């Protein structure tokens, strides 16, 4: 049986990890590669980096970050933030990322999903969608709208319709980021996550709202998610990944064993 994935998300601005990461005696919490190594050894199943600078002149800095991270960890990681063109995708993938996460860029130009899938394979194209609950209507039959720019800009697109269109165009995974729940620590939007997960044939990643271990359990059961993004729940050190996995395993959720060994085979304690 496939394990449910826990995916820490790190925001990177001008080459440095920015928000919320404040713990770990001997780890430089600003250094993306050091943070990647830390979460790798903690048993993260995958990582995602969001470039929140995302201006063209800073692109080179992010590619350096990707190269540095790729030397440190031997699990998949994706990169998102401001990716618009096939050249953007190629640069990030060649620098060592396993996947690219495309958000606003796909809303503005859906063909990028098809072109990316054709050039690099669907398995590395993640369609990331920010969604917001709205009153169900003819325009929004699913009761959920796609928004962009961190929720500031409505798109007029129905979330379920966009998810299915994205799958059809070639996305290999969908990340459903609830703007309503983002930063609230009140739990993922289970209803929206499940509604989409049950109506597409590709893996769905829940995002936005994790504040306690039970929220991950809910995402993987009631939310029908295949993976879950975590940020502040792990960044503040309150709920380290080994503990989260222990909790989930105890409740019958299949997760990957949470201890990494280094290349020499030396076991590193996850605590």
């Amino acid at each position, binding site marked *: 049986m496939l*394990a449910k994935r826990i995916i820490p998300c790190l925001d990177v601005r001008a080459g440095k990890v920015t928000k919320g990461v404040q713990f770990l005696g001997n780890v430089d919490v600003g250094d993306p590669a050091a943070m990647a190594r830390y979460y790798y050894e903690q048993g993260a199943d995958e990582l995602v980096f969001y470039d929140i600078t995302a201006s063209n002149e800073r692109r080179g800095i992010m590619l350096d970050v990707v190269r540095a991270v790729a030397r440190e960890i*031997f*699990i998949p990681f994706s990169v998102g933030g401001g990716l618009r063109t096939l050249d953007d995708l190629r640069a990030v*993938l060649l620098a060592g990322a396993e996947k690219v996460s495309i958000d606003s860029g796909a809303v503005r130009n859906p063909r990028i999903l098809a072109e990316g899938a054709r050039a690099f*394979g669907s398995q590395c194209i993640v369609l990331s969608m920010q969604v917001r609950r709205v009153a169900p209507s003819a325009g929004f039959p699913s009761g959920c709208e796609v928004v962009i720019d961190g929720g500031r800009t409505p798109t007029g697109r129905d979330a379920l319709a966009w998810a299915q269109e994205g799958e059809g165009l070639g996305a290999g995974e969908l990340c459903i980021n609830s703007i309503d729940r983002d930063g609230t620590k009140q739990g993922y939007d289970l209803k929206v996550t499940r509604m989409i997960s049950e109506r597409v044939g*590709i893996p769905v990643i829940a995002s936005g709202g994790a504040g306690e271990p039970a929220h991950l359990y809910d995402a993987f059961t009631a939310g029908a998610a*295949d993976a879950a993004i975590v940020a502040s729940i792990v960044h503040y050190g309150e709920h380290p990944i080994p503990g989260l996995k222990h909790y989930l395993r105890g409740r019958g959720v299949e997760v990957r064993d949470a201890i990494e060994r280094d*290349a020499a085979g030396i076991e590193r304690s996850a605590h």
Partner: protein
Amino acid sequence: MPLLFVMRKWPEMIAIVDYKAGNLTSVARALDHLGHRCEITDQRAAIRAADRVILPGVGAAGATMEQLEALGLAAALRDDVARTGKLFLGICIGIQVLLDRSAEDHAECLGIIPGKVVRFAPAIDGRPLKVPQIGWNRVRQTRAHPVFADVPDNTHFYFVNSYYPVPDDPAATIAMSDYGVNFTAAIARDNVIATQFHLEKSGAAGLKLLDNFCRLKD
């Protein structure tokens, strides 16, 4: 004679077959990390000269075979690697092209391992199955093989696949996994070893398996 002696002391060279697709650098980075010398090459002579050969990658069977044929590497893999006893490791698409043919693109493949490659069913017993399989799945070691030395049975490895190999000879399978159906996750026959999962993205367990391959005695 003295020169030969010196050459034998040189570290081995591992050729990573470059078929102009997929991400080959991640395997090279893993080998670097483990301290094994490698080169990414599309040259038949380099593959012939290498001590071991790895065919990694992601991609579709049809496109991969077209590239391997166009670059003259299909013949190199059949004649200079498989038949010579040189140690070979295929990863992901690198396991699938070893068989006779693939349902993906109806591709004719290398025919090094008799058998075929088929697609996961979209539903099992009425329950929908997400395809591709993306993520960490347990790998059951069904036959003892030194490539699994010090890797516990039922360890999770990272998979990304819509298709899986079905060798004609069940004895070719050394490990299986379960994704709606029990499928062959790793193959070994003589010098040819291959995994459906990504060793270079499977954390410490993947690195251990990769290191084991690099240390196998032929």
